[in-house]
């Protein structure tokens, strides 16, 4: 189709000549190739493939040709347009990739810029520690019991076998309220919650009672007029000291890992008989008393044991005062300090850090301990 036009024939319209179509096509393809970016390519597309481009105009004239010539010209123009469309698409893809690559490089940011725009918060380690302890028991089927901190004297003392003239009553320096004859105290222990539980529920009772308690201690690095205790109480048929030890061992292993067990020493608490002091194997030196780097373990001061708290078999007199038949049921109880556990578990050195509300102390604990 590239022979010279020798005869004038209306059929042989110039724009539709093979040479002309070829020229338009080559010109268009060259323009596509020369487009350096997407906007340039868009302009090329308009100029060479748009409605008013030479190939489009040529295409419009095809209809005026006689049938034979029409077919030939149609094929010629169609092929040219097809080649152009293909070239545009190919160029489009190349330029898009180029554009994306350039954009990704240009849009680089300094990801180390701080974004401390929304403030951080935290829960208090005493809260989270006491929840952690409670959860161990809840997982065993126990429930969490609670009671008021301003408590009836009878529940804080008398019902727990601490009569008015019990020498042990002076061991606990009690905050009394006015008027003095109204029989209200700030509870010195969470044990009144145990009494309340026995008075309001039937056995079997399996409860753990965390909470705030108060003693008239001056405030210093190791004493506070307010601190936190958790006590446990079980009242059921056939409960023994072995169940007490089993429950405590389980709790300690859940909190501090395998192998952390208890040691009992005979002690005295009016609430329990027999009574024991409980120690736990030091979770840092695991009972050796030695620090890893040599010297004595700081957590247990070389003892190998950490004093935890008191426990024992619930005194039948307490069961009686709380409406539980001691001939049918026996129970055990234990109690220890949550604040102290937070201190030795996390290596805190001053008890006051727990109560001064300094966010620098609390924030690192986050929402769980």
């Amino acid at each position, binding site marked *: 189709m590239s022979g010279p036009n020798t005869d004038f024939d209306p059929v042989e319209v110039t724009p539709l000549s093979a040479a002309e179509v070829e020229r338009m096509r080559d010109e268009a393809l060259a323009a596509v190739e020369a487009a350096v970016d997407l906007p340039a390519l868009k302009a090329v597309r308009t100029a060479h493939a748009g409605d008013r481009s030479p190939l489009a105009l040529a295409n419009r004239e095809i209809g005026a040709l006689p049938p034979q010539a029409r077919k030939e010209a149609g094929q010629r123009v169609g092929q040219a347009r097809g080649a152009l469309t293909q070239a545009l698409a190919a160029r489009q893809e190349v330029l898009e990739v180029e554009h994306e690559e350039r954009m990704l490089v240009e849009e680089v940011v300094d990801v180390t810029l701080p974004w401390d725009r929304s403030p951080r918060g935290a829960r*208090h380690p005493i809260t989270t520690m006491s929840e952690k302890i409670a959860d161990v028991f809840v997982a065993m089927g126990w429930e969490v019991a609670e009671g008021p901190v*301003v408590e009836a004297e009878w529940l804080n003392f008398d019902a727990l076998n601490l009569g008015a003239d019990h020498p042990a009553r002076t061991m606990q320096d009690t905050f009394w309220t006015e008027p003095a004859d109204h029989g209200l105290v700030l509870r010195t222990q969470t044990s009144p919650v145990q009494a309340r539980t026995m008075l309001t529920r039937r056995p079997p009772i399996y409860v753990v009672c965390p909470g705030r308690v108060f003693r008239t201690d001056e405030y210093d690095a190791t004493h506070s007029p307010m601190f936190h205790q958790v006590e446990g109480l079980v009242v059921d048929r056939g409960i023994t000291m072995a169940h007490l030890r089993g429950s405590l061992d389980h709790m300690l292993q859940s909190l501090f890992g395998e192998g952390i067990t208890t040691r009992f020493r005979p002690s005295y608490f009016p609430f329990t008989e027999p009574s024991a002091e409980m120690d736990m194997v030091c979770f840092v030196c695991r009972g050796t008393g030695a620090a890893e780097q040599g010297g004595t373990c700081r957590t247990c001061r070389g003892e190998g044991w950490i004093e935890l708290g008191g426990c024992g078999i619930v005194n039948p007199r307490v069961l009686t005062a709380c409406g539980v038949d001691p001939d049918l049921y026996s129970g055990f109880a234990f109690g220890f300090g949550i604040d102290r556990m937070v201190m030795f578990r996390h290596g805190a050195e001053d008890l006051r850090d727990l109560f001064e509300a*300094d966010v620098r102390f609390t924030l690192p604990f986050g929402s769980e301990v």
Partner: protein
Amino acid sequence: MSWLREHVALPESLSTDELTDRLTALGLKLEALERPGHDMSGPLVVGRVLTMEPEAQKNGKTINWCSVDVGAANGTGDPQGIVCGAHNFSVGDLVVCVLPGGVLPGGFEISARKTYGHVSAGMICSTQELGLGEDHSGILVLPEDAGEPGDDVFGLLDLREEVVELEINPDRAYALSIRGVAREAALGFDLDYADPAARAVPPANGDGWPVEIEDAEGCPVFVARTVSGVDATAPTPDWMARRLLLAGMRPISLAVDVTNYVMLELGRPLHGYDADELTGTVGVRRARDGEKLTTLDGTVRALDPEDLVVTDDSGAIGLGGVMGGEATEMSQTTTRVLIESAHWDPVSMFRTGRRHKLTSEAGRRNERGVDPTICEVAAQRAAELLVEHGGGTIEDGVTVVGTAPPREPISLPVDLPAAISGMSIPADTTLAHLAAVGCDVEVDPRGDSLWATPPPWRPDLTDPYDLVEEVARIVGYDEVPSVLPDAPSGRGLTRGQALRRRVGRALAGAGYVETVSFPFVGAADLERLGLDGDDERRRTLRLANPLSAEAPDVTTTLLPGLLSATARNLGRGTSDVALFELATVTLPENGAPPAPLLPVDTAPSAAQWEELQRAVPAQPQHLAVTLAGAREPAGWWGPARPATWADAIEAVRVVADAVGAEVEVRAAARAPWHPGRCAEIVVGEHVVGHAGELHPRVCASYDLPPRSAAAEIDLDVLAAHAREVVPAPRISSYPVAKDDVALVVDADLPAAELAATLREGAGELCESVRLFDLYTGEQIGEGRKSLAFALRFRALDRTLTDAETAEARAAAVALAVQRHGAEQRA
């Protein structure tokens, strides 16, 4: 330890550590172990003074230049030349010499040194230098039969002693004596035990000092013995003084020291009177109203009719069992001593001690319970010691009034120790261990239980479970196995407990830091909140014995603690602070009834329980937050966003969302908030709390920056209105139609109210109404504001037509115009 070994045959191979470990396991916890004398080392020997030449010195002192025979201890056998500054000895006396190379207490090493013109090859020692006592007036002269020159004195004088300090629980008063500890050591190792109270005593007769007991309940036994002709100046023997010192008591005089020594040995407190100061019959009775007594600490005490007093014809001469009186106190001139050995009612002792704030070694034992059967023995022992070291004679008269109350046997099912301890304990083990603690044990003929009569020194043993503890502790608590009980299936946390945890987590997630504060406040703290005189938060529960006079009340609001904590953080350099606290407050009611002291031998009746519950004040869980400084700090992104009243309200919304409660916010005025920037938080019909900006005066009084914000709500009420079950929403899949509307209203119309009106007016096709712009300014006019809302419309079952949307929008606007006089902005 030497004292202990006199009464229990501890084998030499048994170390003190082993002993204290066993005692600790038995319940006598090792408190401290001291080893006085263990820093001393030889040569420390007996010497005989051969010559002594006094030489006056330029400094006015006179020293003695002595030669002392130290046997072969110095290696040569020649006499040792020693300079000594003391003069209380003479040629021929046996003394204690430390030779060069020896070390005295405190690491004081002795070497031959030149002094006062001589080479002193050692030192002649005083009691104090040997660590044996406080007497440094002169050197220690040994008795003639003490030993030979050159003998080592460590063993001779028990210079190396071990002092074991035990922590004694209040139920084990018997262990506050050598007698009791020796018994524990003996039963701990199954050793022979020589009871120091097993002594012959002469029988009572009518010749003793006349004694009349008016109150036999308060003083069941009173023994009096008299020793006359005592040398008032006789010193306390060194060994006794040393033991008292090591036991933490100061030697005073022979007669006083003897009574203390017997108390430490037997556990029975004694009192000695100067018999020449006594007039007539000694009596025991309760004090009379208005009676006064000067006790030997020099304090004049107004006596209570419950106090037990010892009397003579002159009136009260002592607080029985607690502290003696000044008038009949033994002194430097006392030659006739009346020894009182009496048993006192522990409850009365406890009450008197507490009433007069008196603590004494005697009182500590008497209020915990002493063996009532050894009054005679203790008096005899004291009298003998007094005569032995102070001369004189024990008068023949023996006064014994009253008898020790008998002990009732306790019935113990044989299998109870095993059933309670969880250990396997055969019956014969139970029998043996009860016998070892001193019980008389009889097996019930039926065989399944036994009768144990506790010994008189164990008033703490009253119940079967007490006996179980005795058996279990001797078997050893270490033997208790570890067994998990079979708990029934639990119901997990209560809803309230779970919600509180959720609230804490939500607030921590929203950037608040939890605090734990003491609940103590004072009137000044509430004043700083700006509470009115009749504000219900001023109705606090007052402590009878507060730690600080500034904060004597139990708080009714968490804000004082939280505001102080905020200020403390700011003061310590944290500039942006957001805190929260979740705790109970105490809300006493006027005229609340007193809490009854109910009986303990049975459970309270329903009425009694009800009465007790009513007396305990309400203590709802409150939640409070404070904000100061920036809520978002300035950064490379731009300027800081200061915390405002709106953040405080938002915190409450966070809490409400966490518990699943829907709250409404309304304008309110309440201290300590800014009256124009305070919201009340309403759920249902209840105002659950308030939030907003703090009053400028409150900020100033708590040292907080202006515009600090706070909120406090009653979490219990909020949680009570929380949705238990969220109804699942129905989601339309048809397209949404959006339209905005801007309304101009009076400036004081709450936006929330206008939004509610639009919602109501727009009807059920309206999906949401959201305020997106607030504008005030000249264009709007004085006292007016423009609020722009985005409205979204959608139906569950169809695509809304433009006409339907327009109609709903128009209805919304129409209601706003009608209800609030709103004008629609173009």
